[in-house]
């Protein structure tokens, strides 16, 4: 018995990245950023690790050094972070994702539409506070920075290896609270090394200023001018 309509299934080989569309857009953006001489930093961390406070202080210091900076900040709701960051004097735009747990390349591109990128030295993208979801989406950044506050527990890198593994630099924040939080520096550094061997770790306190000079100098060196 053969059914004339029956056709044997066949296999279509595809072999593509599932996030191909985002990856290709991010690659194009990275090339456009490089052509404009723009250094783009993607800040990722859990909510409350201190991204906004670090960023506000970083913007202030870079502006004082004569650099042209701007920021894009992602949150599920509210433009509170954009308002806070604007106090630094830098142009800031807020992306409200309305429930989306991460930023994607096209959301960033949309915000950049009328910005003259060649008039900027640094663009900071503050991702949605989340230690898992932002990992998979390339935003065309030059540098991905994972923040970890001393209050979060030294095993965070082991619990969320993907995020730390895709980072280029780790910034330990709120280092002024280390003693009060019984922060175990040695365990933290060894856990970071277990998921991202050889990564640079910078200790900072955005409020007290500890380590901020080194962090900003590191960024300027990476910009290369």
């Amino acid at each position, binding site marked *: 018995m053969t059914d004339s309509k029956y*056709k044997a*299934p*066949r*296999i*279509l*080989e*595809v*072999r*593509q*990245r*599932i*996030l*191909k*569309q*985002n990856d290709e857009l991010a690659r194009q953006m990275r090339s456009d950023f490089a052509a404009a001489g723009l250094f783009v930093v993607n800040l990722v961390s859990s909510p409350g690790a201190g991204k906004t406070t670090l960023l506000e202080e970083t913007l202030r210091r870079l502006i004082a050094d004569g650099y042209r900076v701007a920021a894009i900040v992602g949150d599920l709701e509210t433009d509170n972070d954009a308002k806070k960051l604007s106090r630094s004097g830098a142009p800031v735009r807020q992306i409200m994702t309305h429930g*989306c*747990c*991460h930023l*994607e390349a096209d959301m960033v591109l949309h915000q950049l539409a009328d910005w003259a990128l060649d008039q900027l030295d640094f663009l900071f993208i503050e991702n949605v506070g989340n230690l*898992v*979801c932002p*990992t*998979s989406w390339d935003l065309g950044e030059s540098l991905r920075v994972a923040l970890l506050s001393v209050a979060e527990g030294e095993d965070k890198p*082991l619990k*969320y*290896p*993907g*995020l730390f*593994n895709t980072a280029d630099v780790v910034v330990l924040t709120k280092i002024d609270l280390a003693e009060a939080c019984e922060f175990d520096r040695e365990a933290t550094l060894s856990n970071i*090394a*277990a*998921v*991202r*061997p*050889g990564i640079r770790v910078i200790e900072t306190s955005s409020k007290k200023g500890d380590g901020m000079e080194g962090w900003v100098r590191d960024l300027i060196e990476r910009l290369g001018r």
Partner: protein
Amino acid sequence: MHELAIAHALVEQLLDQAEQAGAQVVYSVKIRIGALADVLEDPLRLGFEVATQGTVAAGARLDIVHIPVSIECEACGEMVELPQTIPLACPTCGTSNIAIRRGRELDLESLEVDQ
């Protein structure tokens, strides 16, 4: 729950492929997920089921191939598959001077279609 966004991107991509091939039915979909891709299977399956509803891939089986981490040790120069994801260090010589060669996959491998 970024798995929903990944499922959406996956379904969009496979429907494109199925349409280009002139397929009327997608029976199954094979994907590869690396141990470092930070993607959970259950929410991905749920997202896949929802996103395929009402399409030629409705009811398609989702086959997931999990890819462990493989590293190339700068000291031994060998490709080694790690028995576990962490620590990312050479199991032979213990050095962490390594390059990750596999384990970050998030790929659509193939579709099984009617024509």
